[in-house]
């Protein structure tokens, strides 16, 4: 396999061990390659290592061994400060419980996605308004989180994740706190963003959500149990 264009995100033989007695091996020799423009699910039961996958892919945590590359940058060698830069410019996060700041308007919550990238306040708000329109909340700019439904809040969080035009969006159980209808809206939004070119990884334990996406990487006991894209190529 020779590739000319670099992967959006690539894990090569990544292991992550947590100290303790006995030590816990949360990831065990994981290799996953995510191309630009992909939409995939990382799926598995709790304890399968998918949360650790999120942390390692999102540079929130470093692997014990192996290589993590984002946009051809070997981030597993980066210092703490440079990892912050990676998160501020290259990664967008979406969390199960949204993590919006209470009492802060939707547009300012979204603008916070650019807070640490050195963009001026006015520009941040302009781009936040654009992002909110992209997720269909152009009419909710001034609303604060507790004036919004769960589905709307998650869409605000998604707007925050895309506002810095990241190389990859990591969504951790994005529908975990939502009812069926809201879940579908959110998944449709992610698919639409993917159609527009975004690379999106959805981490979920929900097989149904995973099945609705073009590619699934199934985890069990810290290993890749099944990767649909490899199954096709092999």
């Amino acid at each position, binding site marked *: 396999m020779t590739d000319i264009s670099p992967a959006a995100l690539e894990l090569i033989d990544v292991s992550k061990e947590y100290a303790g007695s006995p030590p816990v091996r949360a990831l065990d020799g994981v290799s996953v390659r995510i191309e630009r423009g992909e939409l995939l699910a990382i799926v598995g039961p709790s304890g399968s290592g998918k949360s650790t996958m999120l942390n390692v892919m999102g540079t929130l945590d470093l692997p014990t061994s192996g290589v993590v590359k984002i946009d051809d940058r070997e981030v597993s060698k980066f210092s703490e*400060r440079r990892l*912050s830069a*990676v998160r*501020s410019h290259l990664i967008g*996060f979406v969390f199960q419980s949204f993590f919006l*700041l209470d009492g802060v308007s939707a547009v300012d919550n979204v603008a916070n996605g650019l*807070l640490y990238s050195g963009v001026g306040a006015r520009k941040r708000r302009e781009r936040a308004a654009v992002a909110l329109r992209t997720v269909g909340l152009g009419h909710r700019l001034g609303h604060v989180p507790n004036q919004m439904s769960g589905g709307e809040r998650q869409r605000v969080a998604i707007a925050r994740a895309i506002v810095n035009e990241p190389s990859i969006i990591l969504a951790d159980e994005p529908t975990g706190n939502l009812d069926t209808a809201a879940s579908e809206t959110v998944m449709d939004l992610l698919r639409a963003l993917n159609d527009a070119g975004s690379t999106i990884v959805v981490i979920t334990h929900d097989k149904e959500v995973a099945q609705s996406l073009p590619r699934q990487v199934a985890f069990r006991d810290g290993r890749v149990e099944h990767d649909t894209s490899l199954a096709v190529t092999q």
Partner: protein
Amino acid sequence: MTAAIEEVVESQLAPASPNKLPPSRLLPADILSVGSSGLRSRKMRTALSALGIMIGIAAMVGVLGLSESSQADLRKQIEALGTNLLTVSPGGGFGGGDGVLPEETAAKISRIGPVEVTADVVTLEQSVLRNDLVNANETSGITVVAADTNLLSTLNGELSAGIWLDEATGATPNVVLGSVAAERHGIIDVSQGIQLYIGDEWFTVIGILEPFPLAADLDRSALIGQPVAAELFDAELNPSIVYVRTDPNFVDDVRAVLPATADPASPEEVEASRPSELLETQNAIEDSFTNLFLGLGAVSLLVGGVGIANVMVIAVIERRNEIGLRRALGATRAHIRRQFLTESLLLSAIGGVGGVALGVFVTWVYARSQGWDVVVPTLAIIGGIVAALVIGAVAGLYPAMRAARLAPTEALRAA
């Protein structure tokens, strides 16, 4: 300048070398809004924890303001009374002398060149009674004094009612009461011709004096004329005190020659003093009280600081998710540390500014009630705010470090 150029160069290089990412950056303009976000969303708690600092600062500013105002008032009094007043009185001395000044002392002193005016008073043994029926021991602690008619002008004294003793009134049984003496006898009005029973004779009250800050003894005196004292009580007119007003430029010189002038035979038995020095001593005593209260203010400031540290530690624990989110959005540890330090500084700055305002207000109210001019030292205002900020910085340091050290993965764990 160089930093700006470096930045431009860096951004130009960025596309060429794909591994070069611009660093995370929190603009200086944003630090304040980020640092105040936590305070804005918890207003009640912000107000209460700022209150702790506020009370401490207000106490210190108030103490400094009040002491400064009262000292300014004392200085004003001293100035009004003049530092050129000297007193001569018989002292104990070593010779076991009789403790008596010669009768003509005042006249001799007034011959010293720079002396402007003198007045002597003679303390008499007689008692002052409301009337001839009360117990002769109920004198209310009031002394009868035979005063020179010059006394009022020498002391820059003033009457609150009635008239002063002159050649005529001083030669007949009339009495002028010191402020305390009048109060003890319950006399306010002198137009009724109220009479007091002094040493078996009836005297008419013709005047009441304002207090003498430099001669407080006179406040507790009933003053009669020297001629009438000599006539009715057969008193020897050896002065108990001679008040001397001198040219302000020669106060020390005059003071040096006073004993020998007053009693050439035994100058060591004469005491010459300067009453304004007593007021200055009083100033110094008030200073030490000020220090005590400042110490108390400092303690309450410290307690306020501990309160802020406490609130900040709680904030860091409560806002773990926010810290995690900010790290996920690209904040560095330094950004998180700066955020919480700013928050703590803002909290203490609110307390500091509020405390200074409260302290000035308290000073204003109290000084006005005492009839003082309101003086708040600039140093107290600046010092109050600086002290608050220092406390905020110290109190915020540990919580901010804790927030910064929190691993993003741990911070993001759902609460």
